[in-house]
């Protein structure tokens, strides 16, 4: 008995039920469409730029808000609400000349006061905004006149421009922000920016409806309405796209990529990204405290095989501690599999027969469990017997951020890295610098030289010297005293119906829709 037997019954039933339920709406049709529907795995949690750390929220925020600076799709920094900007010889005073004639969605004119109020809000320690750590280098923001604003940093800060281009530096409508306080960005009425789209309605877990701003200073977007629709299941997202229910989907499940690439009427849009997949070491655990052991593990891994077999077309093997699109990336080369070298390193470290190792992973990352299995099997030839522990996301986060280091049982753990400023500072400093609060340093990595170099790089505003320092930092953490096994750099891939044009995925893992046309 096959499915075929079931289908006629199901068909008859469907028709019966459909007839019984009575006139539903007809499916949309026609040649031109003024609406684009975008499906992502989850709803936005908030549209408050100061309180988001998830890509889904960033996606919508990026359409509704703008910062003084922004990234184009090649990650170049461009002026948005600022027309020109410059830094004084002291290296800490930045002056921005603002664009005139820009208004928030409720018609309030955009002026320097909005910039001051926005940064005063995120810097207010009492409000505990999630994004406060990004701005700790800021001393103050002052209004010079209506269209000039001055930022003063506490020290020379090399990543100042990427930080101001970051989505969390978006400028809020101060009137709306004051009215809603911490409720800002929690509903359509409580959201107001200067972006090319404004929020019309938000039905939680169903849809966010955005409408274009006519006469926006960057040009009126060609598509009038944009609907953001959360569809949690990857397989359902793909089917919804194939059925024509939605026009663009993100987070295509890796096993579906090959089929979709060949599918008629579907296009895959692909870009390099800031995202990399790694397995990080907890360097406080024996024998991982020995750099030679970590080097041995790194040399035992066959990155090519993993990329070819598990994430075909989805990634390229890592060539450094950052991905090539990021500012400060240094190409240190792929680490090839070299079992002799790995065994020699283990012998030198005093583990000629290997040792047992725990690898923690979570299915939250695409292929998270399969990757751990691949790593475990590749470690076998050098005598390391790895056991895999699969946790849900909340438990992983608890291990990393909710427990003191001595209580964290993890030894080697999966981690997706992707610094949302696309800059080496945010990509390395919080993750590997020795820090009392361990920021995001969940492997408790500590290397005195790395700390020195990374601090110096952070305060360096000369581009050439800055790059040299970051190169040194990456040599340490990627090769000499590895903080992780870097497996591969992810592509960011979205799938769209063939009739969709002008949609471009950004390396940050969000999609730009303001030039989208739907045929």
């Amino acid at each position, binding site marked *: 008995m096959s499915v075929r*037997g079931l289908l006629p019954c199901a068909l008859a039933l*469907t028709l019966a039920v459909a007839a019984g339920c009575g006139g539903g709406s007809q499916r949309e049709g026609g040649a031109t469409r003024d609406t684009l529907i975008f499906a992502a795995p989850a709803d936005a949690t908030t549209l408050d730029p100061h309180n988001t750390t*998830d890509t889904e929220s960033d996606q919508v925020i990026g359409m509704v808000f703008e910062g003084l600076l922004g990234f184009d799709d090649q990650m170049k920094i461009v002026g948005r609400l600022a027309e020109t900007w410059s830094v004084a010889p002291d290296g800490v005073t930045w002056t921005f000349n603002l664009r005139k004639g820009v208004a928030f969605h409720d018609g309030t004119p955009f002026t320097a006061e909005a910039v001051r109020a926005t940064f005063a809000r995120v810097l207010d320690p009492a409000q505990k905004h999630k994004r406060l750590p990004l701005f700790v280098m800021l001393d103050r923001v002052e209004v010079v006149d209506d269209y000039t604003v001055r930022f003063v940093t506490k020290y020379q800060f090399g990543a100042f421009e990427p930080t101001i281009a970051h989505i969390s530096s978006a400028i809020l409508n101060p009137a709306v922000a004051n009215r809603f306080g911490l409720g800002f960005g929690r509903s359509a009425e409580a959201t107001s920016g200067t972006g090319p789209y404004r929020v019309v309605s938000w039905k*939680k877990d169903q849809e966010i409806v955005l409408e274009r701003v006519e006469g926006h200073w960057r040009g009126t977007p060609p598509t009038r309405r944009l609907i953001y629709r959360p569809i*949690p*299941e990857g397989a*359902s997202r793909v*089917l919804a796209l194939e059925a024509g229910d939605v026009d663009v989907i993100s987070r295509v499940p890796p096993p579906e990529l090959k089929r979709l690439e060949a599918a008629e009427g579907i296009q895959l849009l692909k870009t390099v990204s800031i995202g990399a997949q790694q397995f990080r070491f907890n360097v406080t655990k024996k024998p991982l405290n020995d750099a030679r052991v970590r080097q041995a593990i790194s040399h035992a891994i066959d990155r090519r095989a993993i990329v070819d077999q598990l994430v075909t077309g989805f990634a390229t093997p890592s060539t450094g501690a950052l991905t090539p699109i990021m500012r400060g990336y240094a190409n240190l080369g792929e680490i090839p599999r070299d079992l002799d070298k790995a065994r020699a390193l283990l012998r030198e470290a005093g583990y000629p027969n290997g040792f047992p190792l725990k690898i923690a992973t979570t299915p939250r990352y695409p292929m998270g469990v399969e990757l751990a299995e691949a790593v475990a099997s590749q470690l076998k030839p050098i005598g390391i017997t790895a056991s895999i522990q699969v946790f849900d996301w909340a438990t992983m986060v608890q291990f990393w951020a909710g427990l003191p280091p001595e209580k964290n049982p993890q030894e080697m753990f999966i981690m997706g890295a992707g610094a949302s400023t696309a800059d080496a500072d945010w990509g390395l400093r919080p993750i590997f610098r020795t820090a009392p609060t361990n920021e995001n340093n969940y492997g408790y990595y500590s290397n005195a030289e790395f700390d020195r170099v990374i601090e110096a790089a952070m305060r360096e505003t000369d581009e050439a010297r800055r790059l040299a320092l970051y190169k040194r930092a990456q040599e340490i953490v990627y090769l000499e005293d590895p903080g992780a096994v870097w497996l591969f750099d992810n592509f960011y891939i979205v799938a769209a119906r063939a009739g969709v044009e002008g949609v471009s995925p950004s390396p940050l893992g969000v999609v730009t829709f303001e030039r989208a046309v739907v045929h």
Partner: protein
Amino acid sequence: MALARVVPSLVGVSVLVFLIVHAIPGDPAVIAAGLEATPDTVEQIRRNLGLDRPLPEQFVTFVSRALQGELGTSIRTGSPVMEEIISKFPFTAILALCSVLVAALVGVVAGVVAAVRHNGWVDHLVMSTTLLAVSTPGYWLGLMLMLTFSVWLGLLPAIGASTPLHFVLPVLTLGLQSAGEVARMTRATLLDVLGEEYLRAARARGVSWRRVLWRHALANTLVPITTILGLRFGGLLAGTVLVESVFAIPGMGRMMVEAVVARDFPMIQGGVLVVATLYVVVNAATDALAMVVNPRLRT
């Protein structure tokens, strides 16, 4: 009498949920704060949520508030739990009710047909189809229905919940599985009954076969069928978790999954309490219904 059983069940459920939620690893404050937050922020959130209080105190607060219909505020979304439940519940209720109807209708008809044509090819067809339906994972069935009716035939929308048409595939997914169970139960009971002396006696008295079947025999299958439908309703509430995810319906099931993922304590506790209440009430109602259809159960 029913109330005497309902109250202890609910007390038990609330204690259990509270304990389970606090026993599983994962700290809602840490998750709410996000990976890039400072320990300071986490502490502040923990205080705001009252999670720094001793467990017994938290439990007393939870129960005394719940008794006043106040379930707290969701950590994940920041809205009152009651409000969230009220906005999500209709979707799940429609799904579960329509599925029970489909299950009853399809199941009883298929079961009767199979029993009447006992050992004929219709019987074999019904039996193998129902076996398939019962053992097919709902997740897979949902995707297959979507593939067939939305992608290939283009008859129905694949995902969402904005029109009645959107509910056809999810209801079929849930309903067909239960229909299989109902059909098998109907057939088995009916075959038992059809062999009984009193039916042969009725036939001998000249009562028409049709009347014997629909009036005498089927009446005796009503009790097991109502019982199984009542039990299935609980199962359906659970089954909606998968179906709501597959079809992107913003119902209770999906809400609960997301609450668990975020360790959203108030939401998990509130959601389970509401579903448990419903389950207990439906079971009590099923018992009452069984007494209506079968006078022998009345005491």
